[in-house]
């Protein structure tokens, strides 16, 4: 069980896909110290950038104490184990992860949990743009697992979602759930413009205020309660919208009635 502490404030981006419980598994501290990372365009060893210590067995597989907001690709593709980051984390945290758990006691940067397949990411702070969204141009979004964000998320989050659950306890930026085909997104506060654009399946639940409803969505009814996952559900009542009709979509968008009185005059007559 390893504790990493940054030796300095990183000025250049660090590419550190080797900070991964699967990579650390069965390696001695010395072996871990010699793992390669890139700082800017220079190849370095992990020990050049971090203080590496071993602790009790019961602790999480990897604990990082300090600000690693310039360190990218931590836990990329991890399958087992747990990473705890006590500080801010950099881009591509847990990208394509296939199991295990990442906890961040701070904020994360873009593409957190990008294209993840399984596992759990808990962010006790804000997440930036492209949460769970795939790399630019790709449509291979998150397939499974769960992401919980206590704070707000930026724009283009949950794009191309194909499965799994994203729970956002704060506000979400524009283009939330762009092009989603399956899976569930729940925003407890407000959601930005162009919500669910291009949606063809799946479920998006907004308990707060929506900036707008795309004209390509049609109201289908109202619902008192919506299931988020096996353990929890969101309390309504909600408007139920179907869309995105421009894509012949069959996705469901649930928008809180109480938080959005501005929608009443437009949609109530169709219920």
């Amino acid at each position, binding site marked *: 069980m390893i504790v990493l502490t940054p030796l300095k404030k990183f000025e250049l981006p660090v590419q550190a896909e080797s900070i991964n419980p699967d990579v650390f598994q069965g390696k001695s501290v010395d072996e871990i110290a010699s793992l390669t990372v890139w700082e800017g365009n220079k190849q370095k060893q992990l020990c050049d950038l971090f203080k590496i210590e071993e602790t009790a067995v019961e602790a999480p597989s990897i604990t990082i104490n300090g600000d690693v907001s310039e360190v990218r690709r931590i836990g990329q593709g991890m399958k087992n184990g747990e990473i705890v980051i006590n500080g801010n984390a950099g881009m591509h945290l847990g990208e394509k992860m296939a199991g295990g758990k990442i906890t961040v006691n701070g904020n994360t940067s873009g593409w957190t949990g990008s294209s993840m397949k399984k596992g759990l990411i808990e962010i006790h702070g804000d997440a930036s743009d492209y949460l769970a969204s*795939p*790399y*630019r*141009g*790709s*449509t*291979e979004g998150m397939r499974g697992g769960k992401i919980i964000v206590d704070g707000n998320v930026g724009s283009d989050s949950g794009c191309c979602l194909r499965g799994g659950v994203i729970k956002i306890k704060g506000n979400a930026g524009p283009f939330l759930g762009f092009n989603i085909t399956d899976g569930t997104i729940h925003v407890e506060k407000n959601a930005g413009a162009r919500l669910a654009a291009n949606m*063809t399946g799946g479920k998006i639940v907004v308990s707060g205020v929506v900036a707008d409803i795309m004209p390509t969505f049609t109201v289908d009814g109202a619902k008192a309660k919506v299931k988020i996952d096996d353990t929890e559900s969101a309390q309504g009542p909600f408007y139920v919208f179907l869309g995105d009709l421009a*894509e012949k979509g069959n996705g469901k968008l649930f928008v809180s009635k109480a938080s959005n009185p501005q929608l009443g005059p437009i949609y109530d007559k169709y219920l």
Partner: protein
Amino acid sequence: MTEMIIKNGFVFDPINGINGEKMDICIKNGKIVESVNEHKAKKIDATGLTVMPGAVDIHTHIAGGEVNTGRMVRPEDHIKDVVRKTAITRSGTGYSIPSTFVTGYRYSKMGYTTVMNPSMAPLGAKHTHEELNDIPLLDKATFPLIGDWWFVLEYLQKGDLTGCARHVAWMMETTKGYAIKIVNPGGLESWGFGNNVHSIDDVVPNFGITPREIMCGLAKVNKMLNLPHSIHLHTNNLGLPGNYVTTLETMKALESVPTDGKPVGHITHLQFSSFAGDSWGNMKSAAEEISKYINNHNHMTFDMGQVIFSDTTTMTADGPFEYVLYQLSGHKWVNSDVETETSGGIIPMHYKRTSAVNAIQWSIGLELALLIEDPWKMFMTTDHPNAGPFFAYPKIMAWLISNKARMATLKRCHKKGQKKSLLPSIKRELSLYELAVVTRAGQAKALGLKDKGHLGVGADGDVAIYNINPETLDIAKKYRTARRAFGNAAYTIKDGKVVVKDGEVVQHVDGKTMWVNVQTADPVKVDADMKLKFKKYWTVEYENYPVSDHYVKVSDQIHVKASV
């Protein structure tokens, strides 16, 4: 200058009828010669290795507007295949649409030395040549799209074949092109108005002529100009179930063109033109019908367009077909109408074993290649990147030389695809000699490249050496070993210089760009009327239109005397 001798290899040179004989190949000043001074010459010991002429690709989209747009549309395609620089090679990206340098390196690693870029909108000729200049290690040529070009349609409408021939000669010089490319004749002009043609006798709007007249007219023009290659044809109704009827009609229509023994046309990516059935649900292979016709006729050549199960990008001038693909896949797409010349479209495509249609397509390509008896008629391509990236060629070679390899892939395909496949009934396995025909000799011959595709005296010093010992290795059984060898040439020699050794690029060499300069008795007059048309219908003035000589970095002009 440099001399080289390749000693003791098993040489496969089908144009000169050499089938695995142990012999030496001598190169001097970049050309094959009878003998060299053995003491001075650089020796390459090819004992126990297979020596073939440098491979030739007759159809691969590697440069130009549609390729570059494809690159821009697919950032996700590049990130999964990043190529670092080395002391010799430059960095770049793959995968389905590699950057220019990576294209050159990857072709060369497989023993390729000559490739043909088959689709260039004349308006994009300058761009295409700029990209071709940047592709190293390969000789290249590019085919301008002429089948839906307004001037040509006007000449054909008037029935003025001589005028048309002179105009096409001017086009070849203006765009530094090599052959006449025709894509979905008439269909692209119709696409400008949101329509398509659905048979070779449908009328093209505004011109009142039919695809049949365009194809046969240009095939006759091709003969009048004595161009080295025949017309290069992408058929109507490509990629639609039941289109084999159109393909058969196209081949029958071209029988009417007088031939002097040379083929009158080349139908490219034949796999996409050989679908039977009337919907995607009951789509099946028409390889039997098509190959039966081809086995009984000698007026045309073909290439495979073999599907590779991978994530690739389709790009073609056939705009209406790309629209059909968009409706099927719902993926991001690009479509355009290139002014008065052609159209274009791009859409990503993932060919999957688990899709019945894709499995059938995969099977059709191989069925055609194996059922067409004469290897000099049917060549190996993937229509890169439309049916798969070119660096998957070793996979196709393995399928062609080994029934075992085919069955291993077939049994992993969709059940419906397996059931409909003719492959279990075809036991043919290509020999190394036949493989040399379908990958270099046949292609060079069909393209009219006199100095390529063979190792006779006077040929270009382009040689590929593979780590295959035909005496000890049974390629049909050990197809994996053969596949590895074809993917990593022991040596690739370009113009007498070793550019690849053991699958690694060891030297940077610029390739030539070949283009035909056709001398007609009476050249086309660029008169005020023609310039006015440019002013009226093009976004580019006539003066800015031609590809001037300095655009072509290493120019290889081929002089041809026309009979008009």
